[in-house]
């Protein structure tokens, strides 16, 4: 007879709430009449994510390993779960925006209808609204929250798939520019499956060498000498799989295409939440399983950080589409985040963990806000994301331009914004660990990246408006809320970051 494993229900509450909301969402899809489905789905998804956020706050200070050692509920897991739940709730609000698109939703009514077919054109104008996106997104959020708490490589893999599959689907659901969206979904799926295979292969190698998939037992096998070729090779493959999700160069090639093709609300969700989840897993893997043999991963992360910063900053310069530009910005920021990972130091003695977690929060908020602004600027064919269309926006829509400028300055790392505090924290962590050459490269990359953020500011304020430029939609309550929260948080984390930094410092604990 199989004994029921010992579960700490309280410690699992955030996960249970989100997965519960997702499952209930599927039932809603089946049983609730279409007329009220949208508000019910939005309410349910928000209740799940906000409830999870509240649960993580209540759980603060918990440090335990539960579910027969498969899950670790510790400071870092809870803080990252709270970040994912909070950013996820904001993303869901962007999904729920109905006043911007004339067709009342940014999502396609029926994704299965071939793009461009008569039926598709017919559906493009019906005011019916797609509500399956909410349970899908909630599942992805649940997967991400599981991902950062996984104390076991198998659970980590399952979580990776749970978070990835809904994202593949969501990417293909844009109401406009359907082919671009479908191409993005296929590309993301194929490359994502490839990366999952890497992860799985690495998992198998690690299991073969260590005899266990539990992180603590892997650590015992690793010791300080790395534990042999098989383990190190397994580590490398695992890291490759994770770097793919985190869109770190040279595993970033999907990022611009998928960011551009996916509905902007989904892009915002991916840019903010997937990044947090992927880095949460990277930190846990490197810290818990391989923390005693820092030399095994340090060169790899070092090289990937430099590649990512340089590729993101330099290719970002050449972009003419805002969504693609923000995608390369995401690649560059992944490199900055890896600088913080280097700051973990030997056996995790550095301040890198707290710094990276703070950076994830700051970057997530800022990038979410930037994408939210992108949804406002529209022309007849949907969102106007080409750079030239933003010329002179400052004169026509001063508040939108000002908010976008704030986010861009934060992404560039100008002081008094969240971006600066985050950069300072990760660079300090890296320099403390003697990685000052990496910090210098990071600073130079920041300067290059600042140039393309500035270009948008220049266009918005210093260029004359184009004749038949896009219109700036009046956002409904959800998007307004998102913009207000993200803008306020971007400023607050820049001017008075003390409390949050302190929280990150105290939460920088891994058990397992």
């Amino acid at each position, binding site marked *: 007879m199989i004994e029921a494993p010992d579960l700490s229900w309280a410690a699992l509450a955030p996960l249970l709430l989100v997965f519960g909301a997702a499952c209930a969402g599927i039932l809603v899809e089946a049983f609730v009449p279409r007329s009220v489905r949208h508000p019910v789905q939005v309410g349910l998804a928000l209740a799940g994510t906000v409830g999870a956020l509240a649960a993580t706050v209540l759980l603060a200070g918990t440090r335990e390993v539960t579910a027969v050692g498969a899950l670790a509920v510790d400071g870092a897991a809870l803080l990252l779960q709270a970040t994912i739940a909070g950013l996820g709730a904001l993303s869901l609000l962007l999904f729920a925006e109905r006043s911007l698109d004339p067709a009342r939703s940014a999502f396609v009514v029926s994704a299965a209808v071939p793009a461009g077919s008569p039926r598709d054109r017919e559906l493009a104008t019906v005011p019916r609204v797609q509500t399956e996106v909410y349970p899908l997104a909630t599942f992805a959020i649940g997967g991400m929250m599981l991902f950062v708490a996984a104390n076991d490589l198998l659970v980590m893999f399952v979580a990776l798939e749970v978070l990835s599959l809904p994202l593949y689907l969501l990417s293909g659901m844009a109401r406009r520019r359907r082919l671009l969206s479908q191409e993005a979904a296929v590309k993301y799926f194929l490359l994502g499956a490839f990366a999952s295979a890497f992860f799985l292969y690495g998992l198998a190698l690690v299991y073969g060498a260590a005899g266990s998939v539990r992180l603590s037992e892997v650590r015992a096998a690793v010791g300080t000498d790395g534990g042999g070729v098989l383990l190190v090779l397994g580590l490398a493959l695992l890291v490759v799989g994770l770097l793919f999700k985190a869109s770190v160069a040279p595993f970033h090639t999907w990022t611009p295409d998928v960011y551009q093709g996916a509905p902007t609300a989904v892009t915002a969700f991916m840019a903010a939440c997937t990044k947090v989840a992927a880095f949460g897993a990277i930190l846990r893997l490197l810290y818990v399983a391989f923390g005693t043999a820092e030399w095994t991963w340090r060169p790899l992360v070092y090289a990937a950080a430099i590649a990512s910063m340089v590729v993101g900053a330099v290719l970002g310069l050449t972009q003419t589409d805002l969504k693609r530009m923000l995608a390369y910005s995401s690649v560059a920021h992944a490199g900055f985040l890896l600088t913080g990972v280097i700051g973990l130091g030997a056996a995790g003695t550095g301040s890198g963990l707290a710094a990276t977690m703070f950076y994830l929060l700051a970057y997530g908020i800022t990038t979410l806000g930037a994408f939210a602004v992108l949804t406002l600027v529209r022309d007849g064919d949907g969102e106007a994301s080409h750079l030239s269309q933003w010329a002179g926006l400052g004169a026509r829509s001063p508040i939108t331009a000002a908010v976008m400028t704030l986010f861009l300055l934060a992404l560039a790392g100008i*002081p008094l914004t969240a971006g600066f505090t985050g950069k300072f924290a990760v660079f300090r962590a890296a320099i403390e660990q003697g990685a000052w050459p990496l910090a*210098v490269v990071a600073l130079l990359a920041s300067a290059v990246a600042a140039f393309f953020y*500035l270009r948008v500011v220049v266009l918005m304020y210093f260029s004359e408006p184009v004749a038949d430029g896009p219109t700036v939609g009046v956002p409904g309550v959800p998007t307004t809320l998102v913009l207000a929260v993200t803008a306020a948080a971007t400023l607050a984390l820049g001017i008075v970051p003390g409390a949050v*930094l302190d929280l990150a410092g105290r939460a920088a604990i891994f058990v397992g």
Partner: protein
Amino acid sequence: MSDFPWLLAMIAVPAIGAAVVAALPRERALLAKQVALGVSLVVLLLAVLTTLAFDAGGPRFQLTTSVPWIPDFGSDFALGVDGIALVMVLLIGVLVPLVVAASWHEADGGPRPVRVFFAWLLLLEAMMVGVFVATDLLLFYVFFEAMLVPMYFLIGSFGGPRRQYAAVKFFVYSLVGGLVMLASVIGVYVVSAGVLGEGTFAFDTLTRLDIDPDVQRLLFLGFFIAFAIKAPLVPLHTWLPDSGAEAPVGGAVLLVGVLDKVGTFGFIRYCLPLFPDASRFYAPFVLVLAVVGILYAALLAMGQSDMKRLVSYTSISHFGFIALGIFAFTTEAGTGAVLYMVNHGLATGLLFLVVGMLIARGGSRRIADYGGVAAKAPLLAGAFLVAGLASLALPGTGSFVSEFLVLIGSFPERPVFTVLATLGIILAALYVLLMYQRTMHGPARGVLLQEDPAEPLPGAGGGGATATATLPAPQRSLRVADLGRREIAVVAPLVALILVLGVYPQPLIDLIEPAVVATLDDMGAASGGTDR
């Protein structure tokens, strides 16, 4: 009264003022200007009261306030002034109201709302005060970088035809310098953590650290590059002529008058005391850059046809003198350099303002487009002359005292560099007087020349004087209004200050000298005679 947080008030008042001005409705342009003028006058009052509350013979840093800001980084919101910072704050207090008054019509009728211009101006004032009064290295850095944003928008939104290019160039140059400095700032923090067990950004504590000379040399470079871009020293100066020429006149005054002083202020406040060994090691190199800058920029200034570019180049030349004074490591030279920072702010500020008034009349920045203006606008010409003479450091103007102090203070230590720098004074006379002579004297010519109307001009300066027919029919004569009341109110205080400081600079020297002595003590350098 000494408990009153003077320094915090001088940051908060303009910052709040900026928010108020920005929140005014678009059609209340006049109110925006009045609020901006009022706020900047309040700051001037605060600066004067701060000076009165400051005891020149007291401890080095006074009026200090400190509250924990980011405990995790060991950084405090710590403010305090020594004599050097105090005179810079006074300079800001004096210049900003004048800039507001001088820019009264700057943004009128443009595509961008008037209130935005004045809101950025006030925000810039708050940042500038902050950068000089911060006594926490991280706080200083934050102001140093944040200061770029208002200036970037002033140049980019309200500047001349090539404003986009100039604004981006300004921002990128400064940002690169700032980021290099950030590496050093973090480096200093990490070093302090290694020595003290816990990292700190407190200036007082950092000056007492004994940093390994090799490490010093690396960290020094990070600070030096940032400040040398800001100051700017040759060869990192190329952004200034563009920014100075394209910025609106008010922005240019603050850019050259105050913002660039942050660079030289940084040399004396941060480079010397934090990295004494490295400062001595790199001093010959810095002095070469300084002297090359004095001569090269002066030669370039002579070759300019654009008045605003010319004034920008003169500044680069003058910054060479300031750097020379700072890196000579003597009390006289250091005091002279700091005094020069003030006097240069006044003199070049006045020069930019007067040039701006001339440009506002003719609509062209080219020297060749003007001539014989003095005959019709004697007050304008007079102000131009005073500004020019102050710029070339004629005795009787404030600049003379400071330049003289720098040269006699540097000579015993660095005779060769000093002698070479002296050549810059001769060149200064050439570029200033040539510009003055070509625009103000000689035959009437250029854009201000207009065909005479059938009847004599109404108003002052016109009338019968046009009878001096120099050109064949159709009769053309120079039509230019002399300084108006608002312009006189802008120019007069600066002219007065330049002349007063030319004959009686002692009060400022009394403020500056103890701080310079303290800086050189921090360095452990042999400070020369202090009996000035």
